[in-house]
Every structure is written in C-alpha cells, then in structure tokens.
C-alpha cells in the first residue's frame, strides 16, 4: 500500500466505513510508516476537537425569535377569528346563543338571497352543475374566481385568487391555486358582529 492509498483509508475509517481486511492493511501500513502515523494522529485529533467544540458549545437563538417568526408568517386564519373567540370564551358564547333566537329573523332575511353567483374573467373552463362549480383537472382559469352560495371544486389550475362566499371549497391534490384561497362566511361574520356589539351594549348599560 502506498501513502496516498493509506490516506484515503484513514478517511474511510473516520467515516466509520472501514472494516475487515482493509482496516488491517491500514493498521499494518501505519506501523511501518511514521509520516502516515503522524498524519493519522492529526486527523483523529482534529476530528475529536471538532466534535467537542462544535457539538458541545450550546448556542441558542434569542427567546423572542419564536414570536417574531409567528408574527412574520402570513395568517390565513383571519376569517375564523370569531371561531377562536368562541373557543376562548365558552360562557359568553352560551349566553350569545340566547341572542341567536332573537336574531333569527334577520338571518333568514340574509339567506333569502342565496342564488349561485360565479364571478371571474375567464369562465370558459369552469363547469357548473347545480350548485357545484368545478375547474376540471388539466384546465386553467386565468385570473380570479369567486363563487358565492355554492361549492367550488378545484382539480385544475386557478391563476388568481379563489374566493368562496357563503359556500365551501374542495381542493384536489392536483389543484394549483396561485393566489390566495379565502372563504368568507358572510352570515357568520355579520352575526358575529351583531353578537359582539350587542354584548358591548349590554356591558355598558
């Protein structure tokens, strides 16, 4: 074995990948060759120092970093703010249920205007079946798509935003929506507005 070959085997050894016959022949060479012995010792010590120094110095990011990161990520859940409020204030929510009864007449008014509305610049590739608006797989809608009072089923591509008002949407694994997906529940948001405002009035009376 020459020294160049020995060096390459030293690295294999440090990678934990040298076994059997090769390991023995490296050992034999090291016994006969003082310069390789030195080289090996240096490599081994450098490796130990690296593990000890890098691994064991514990560095940590500043504590407020998590907060900063959470603030920097775009929040997609804004429409659901009322839901989080409900979760955090169960007692008030129960009280609010009474008010619901009073508000029923207004809600049904809201619901009376519930015909399907599909808005968008490019609706050629959109298939409408009853209340279901489908963008079939392989087809592309240029620009935004808005569906009101229906279900949007996206298998293909929407180049803009998808907005669903008072409806629901389904996104297939093949779907590609380049813009934002927003789901707006007007009745609930409006109801929510009414409930919170009623409470404020009650609280200050």
């Amino acid at each position, binding site marked *: 074995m020459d020294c160049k070959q020995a060096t*390459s085997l030293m*690295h294999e050894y*440090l*990678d934990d*990948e040298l076994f059997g016959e090769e390991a023995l022949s490296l050992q034999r060479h090291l016994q006969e060759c003082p310069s390789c012995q030195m*080289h090996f*010792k*240096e*490599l081994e*010590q*450098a*490796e130990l*120092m*690296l*593990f*000890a*120094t*890098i*691994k*064991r*110095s*514990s*560095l*940590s*990011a*500043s504590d407020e*970093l*998590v907060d*900063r*990161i*959470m603030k*920097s*990520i*775009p*929040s*997609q*859940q804004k429409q659901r703010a009322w839901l989080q409020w409900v979760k955090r204030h169960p007692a008030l929510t129960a009280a609010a249920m009474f008010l619901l009864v009073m508000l029923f007449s207004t809600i049904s008014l809201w619901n009376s205007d519930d015909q399907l509305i599909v808005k968008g610049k490019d609706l050629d590739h959109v298939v409408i079946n009853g209340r279901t608006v489908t963008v079939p797989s392989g087809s592309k809608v240029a620009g935004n798509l808005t569906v009101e009072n229906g279900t949007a089923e996206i298998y293909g591509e929407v180049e803009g935003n998808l907005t669903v008002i008072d409806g629901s949407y389904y996104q297939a694994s093949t779907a590609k929506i380049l813009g934002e997906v927003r789901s707006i529940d007007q009745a609930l948001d409006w109801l929510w507005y009414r409930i919170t405002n009623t409470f404020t009035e009650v609280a200050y009376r």
Partner: protein
Amino acid sequence: MVDHFDVRLVKLARQGDQEAFADLVDVYKDKIFHLAYRMLSNRHEAEDIVQETFLRVYKNWERYDEKQKFSTWLYRIATNLCIDRLRKRKPNYYLDAGMNDQEGLDGYTLIPGDERTPESEYLLTETQQTIHYAIEGLPAKYKSVVILRYLQELSLSEISDVLDMPVTTVKTRLHRGREFLRKKLQHKVL
C-alpha cells in the same frame, strides 16, 4: 419517539394549526440557529436565517414529502439559504465576519466539572477560537458538509439527502474539509 412526535406536529402544522407550527419552531430554532451561526459566524445573520427558513417551510408545505424526515427538509432549506448568503457576501466582508462577533465562543464547553483554572480557561478559549477560525476559513462547499457532520452528527447518506448530492461527492468534500482543518490546526492545537 422524537420522530413520532415530529410527525404529528408536522401533520397539524401543515393543516394550518398555528400552535403546532409555533411548537415546531420552538423545537428546531436552536438547531437551525447553531447551524447558521457555524456557517455564517454572525449572530444577527443566523437569526435571519432561522426566520427565513421557517417562513419558507410555512409557504412551501405542499413541497414537503412526508416520506422524508422533516429535519432533513428543514436542514436543506437552511443550508441552501446560508450558502446563498455566503455567495452574496463581498470578499472583504467575508474576511471581517466573525472578528467582532465572539458570542459563539464559549470557552467552558471543553472543561469538565469544576476543574477550571485561569490557565486552562485561557488555553481552551484560544483553542476554541482557533477551531472557530479554522471552520470559518473553510470554503463554503466543504463547510456545509463539515458542519452537518460534526454539528448535527448526520450520516453521510443523510448529508447527501440534505445537500441533494451523491454520497460520493459528500465523501470527497468531507475528506477535503477534514484535511483542510487538519492543516489549519496542525501547529496550533494538535
């Protein structure tokens, strides 16, 4: 066990659970920070990298393949961001970096227990500094391999996944990086 915990958190975070996402950030922020600090030798830049890494994770969930370990994906994003930064640095800034930012040099990490003496403290700080500068001087392509190996203790095949390069290339770079460090440390520490 840890992996199982990870998988659950990742699933929830992918579905938009903000608390699960915050937990993931909490679990991994220091690891990514340490990696970035070793790559860039600058605390401020390292924190930027942590933030940018998680922002990318958040925006690119659909690109994450659940068959892959989450940590591997995370290291890949962070390493690529660091390499980009190193490339963009002006050469003179590169030389200056780390000279006035010594927070990462903790002289105590090698000393066991209470056997500290002023001399050994001094010596170890010197040693650590030497190693710090040796790593800093590593060319970027060796640096990422060396840091993933010694800091995150990844196997060669894991490093090949993170850096998206063949294991043979990882090996060559690790071997060259090791030789580079050996020569740098030869007369100073060893």
